[in-house]
């Protein structure tokens, strides 16, 4: 008997010592390590709602269905959450499109207040709205982002100044 070998036992007097009893551990295949590493990075990025997305799960299903099948079999709870998150982001994408239209329409409505600056009776058309936290084009504040972050314009501008958000 080899001391320390899997399942080996050594009898000393009345005491039986169990040495190196093998424990069942299910290992994940290397391809899933890559998949999970990518997913981990994407999910961590959801902390910032402005840039959140989750096309990776459906893309994986298209490009590498074998991995998706493996995940569904080995981690069904996680696969279920990926499914739900994927649906949620589709809904968010659709809502975001709707809110962008609302923003554009409201801007168009508001600029009509400035019609008096132009020819009487002529039509005024909204062109664009831009607030930059530092005067450059690099830190432009987008109203959709302010809304998604649950902040007002002033606070969003301040936080961009403080944190140097990329846009």
């Amino acid at each position, binding site marked *: 008997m080899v001391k320390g070998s899997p399942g080996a036992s050594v009898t000393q007097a009345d005491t039986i010592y169990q040495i190196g009893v093998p424990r069942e*551990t*299910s*290992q*994940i295949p*290397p391809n*899933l*390590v890559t998949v*999970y*590493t990518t*997913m*981990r990075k994407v*999910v*961590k990025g*959801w*902390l910032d*709602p402005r840039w*959140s997305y989750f096309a990776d799960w459906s893309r994986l299903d298209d490009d590498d269905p074998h991995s998706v099948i493996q995940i569904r079999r*080995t*981690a069904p709870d*996680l696969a279920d*959450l*990926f499914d*739900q*998150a994927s649906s*949620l*982001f589709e*809904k*968010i994408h659709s*809502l975001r499109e*709707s*809110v962008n239209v*609302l*923003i554009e329409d*409201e*801007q168009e409505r*508001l*600029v009509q207040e*400035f019609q008096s*600056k*132009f*020819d009487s009776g*002529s*039509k*005024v*058309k*909204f*062109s*664009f*709205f*831009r*607030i930059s936290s530092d005067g450059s084009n690099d830190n432009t*504040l987008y*109203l959709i982002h*302010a*809304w*998604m972050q649950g902040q*007002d*314009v*002033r606070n969003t*501008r301040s936080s961009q100044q403080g944190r140097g958000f990329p846009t």
Partner: protein
Amino acid sequence: MVVGHRVGNPVTESIATGEEAIKFGQRVLDYLEMQESARKLREELKRVQEFRKAILPLIERELSKS
């Protein structure tokens, strides 16, 4: 910036800068407060954070098996 007409010619002009621009943007956000789809967007974004909290430990669990 808006596009209007002066003496019949189209001109693009800034109508608000600085504080006025901030107020303009804020009025748009105030309008969104009253819109159901805008409020719904915020609610759904909160759910993203719940998913994040639930998913990350499960990914870590799977990676720990490697």
